[in-house]
């Protein structure tokens, strides 16, 4: 096939599995206690200029605790993978204010929106300013990029994106199938420098269980050069070994384990608590006015030291009890 096209979008990460193999060769600690604090994990594993990815989907099972800490520690010049990132993206976008630039490049499949809740004014300001380099993808394309990296392959073949401006603005390439001759899309492996995944249960070594949908986290965990896990609760390795088929992320992929109860708040955590729609609405509301937003961030993020304090400010145990009710009785 002569007329194979290439997307013109920027490639933010190196898809070469040989480079990745040299990094992964050093990841080995399957039996090591990796329990640490969110603050120390972010300080130790996130460097300015890193390419970051966030697990979960939308405002569901996201590592809010780590997103806040990245903002609080004032990390700069980060790349970010946006496969239906909603509130997590909204938090990081708050780092691009008053001359600061937390986000400098984004692989975008779904950003700036919060699904049925509307669009984030702050995220839109940032993404419309031209200060952030953007490469376009679809959710499946980004998931396939993590799949390729997790497999240790430089790319994955797939069949969407073709024929659209989304492809033109991506860093994907058209290829001819060696067996059928068909035109296919090849998406490059995406190895994030560091990823943050919130789970229901982890042991101190990082063997993790997830309730409900895994979204792309099976692959994201394996694709990441460094992986910080936050968990609703710590369980023993003995408990993990009772049902090994329930493990989704094995310890040897994990670099840090942080106990973070309600760590997805104000997002949803399956079986634990529903999303706090009032607080999410407040975020969208205050973002309209830069001064109010500044005060809001002071109160909830910059003004506190730990995520637990934020949860307290948002209503603490009382509010979480309500959200638990909503989660357990979804018909109401």
């Amino acid at each position, binding site marked *: 096939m002569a007329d194979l096209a290439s997307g013109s979008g920027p490639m933010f990460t190196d898809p070469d599995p040989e480079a990745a193999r040299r990094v992964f060769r050093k990841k080995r600690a399957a039996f090591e206690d990796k329990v640490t604090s969110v603050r120390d994990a972010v300080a130790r594993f996130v460097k300015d200029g890193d390419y970051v990815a966030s697990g979960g989907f939308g405002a569901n099972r996201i590592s809010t605790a780590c997103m806040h800490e990245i903002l609080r520690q004032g990390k700069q010049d980060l790349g970010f993978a946006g496969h239906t990132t909603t509130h997590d993206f909204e938090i990081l976008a708050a780092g691009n204010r008053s001359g600061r630039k937390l986000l400098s490049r984004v692989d975008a499949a779904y950003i700036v929106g919060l699904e049925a*809740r509307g669009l984030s004014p702050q995220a839109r300001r940032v993404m419309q300013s031209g200060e952030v380099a953007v490469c376009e993808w*679809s959710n499946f394309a980004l998931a396939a990029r993590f799949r390729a990296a997790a497999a240790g392959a430089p790319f994955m073949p797939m*069949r969407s994106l*073709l024929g659209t*401006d989304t492809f033109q603005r991506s860093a994907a390439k058209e290829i001819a199938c060696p067996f059928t001759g068909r035109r296919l899309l090849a998406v490059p492996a995406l190895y994030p420098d560091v990823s943050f995944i919130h789970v229901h249960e982890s042991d101190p070594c990082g063997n993790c269980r997830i309730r409900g949908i895994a979204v792309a986290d099976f692959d994201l965990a394996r694709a990441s050069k460094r992986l910080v896990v936050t968990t609703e609760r710590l369980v023993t390795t003995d408990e993990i070994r009772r049902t090994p088929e329930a493990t989704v992320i094995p310890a040897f992929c994990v670099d840090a384990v942080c106990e973070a109860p309600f760590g997805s708040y104000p997002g949803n955590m399956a079986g634990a608590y529903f999303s706090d729609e009032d607080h999410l609405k407040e975020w969208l509301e205050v973002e309209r006015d830069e001064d109010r937003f500044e005060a809001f961030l002071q109160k909830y993020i910059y003004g506190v030291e730990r995520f637990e304090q934020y949860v307290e400010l948002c209503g603490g145990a009382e509010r979480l009890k309500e959200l638990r009710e909503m989660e357990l009785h979804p018909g109401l």
Partner: protein
Amino acid sequence: MPDYSATELSICAASRMLEDGATVGVGTGAPCATAMLAQKRHAPRLLVAFEAGGLAPLLPSMPISVGDSRTFYRAQMATSMGDVMEACQRGMMDYAFLGGAQIDPFGNLNSTVIGDHERPNVRFPGSGGGNDFASLCWRTMVMTEHDRRRFVERLDFLTTPGFLTGPGAREVAGLPGGGGPHKVITDLAVMGYDPETCRMRVESLHPGVTFERVQENTGFELLQAPHVRETAPPDEDELRILREEVDPYGYIIGR
């Protein structure tokens, strides 16, 4: 003859197009309400899939996110995004049911930017799973409000494929064969596509709506099906299920 809103009418009209035993990938909002109505009324065996991994849930209420815990509540399987998307790529999903966006005569959609891509006037979320659903499912259904800002001759950005530039263009581009846009349901009419030209055509007008009014609200020339019918209005039963069971709080139908 019950009274009903245009939104209720379009949801009811769309739900009748989802036959029992079919498989559909849905987005939040009206598409999800439509699928829920179909399940509760005439299509109990309609398999609903969500891009984040929810497969055949017993939806207890309207999801706020296509990945929230309602989307896999008592599901047959809570799986991964890749597994759902690969099922679409394998050819197992009949319908992609997408929400509002900028749409052109060939059913192509824009949900990325208005204006220049580097420095857009408006940045929208982007494809999400929309491009994948519309590329890989057999038939794409779109629900949106009907106005000239949405129905445009030329998109600022082609995010999600319809028929692209016309007959055969999807196959030439490498997309799976035999798929493409199926229906567009708005507050004014139901549109399909002309088999010869792949251009949008009016197939049924909602009660009291003239073709002229639809054309006025459309930024490109609309074709007409050989026999333009009147959209059958919702019956008591549909409205009761929609109002009492599907959307009791009126998130979508707004009341």
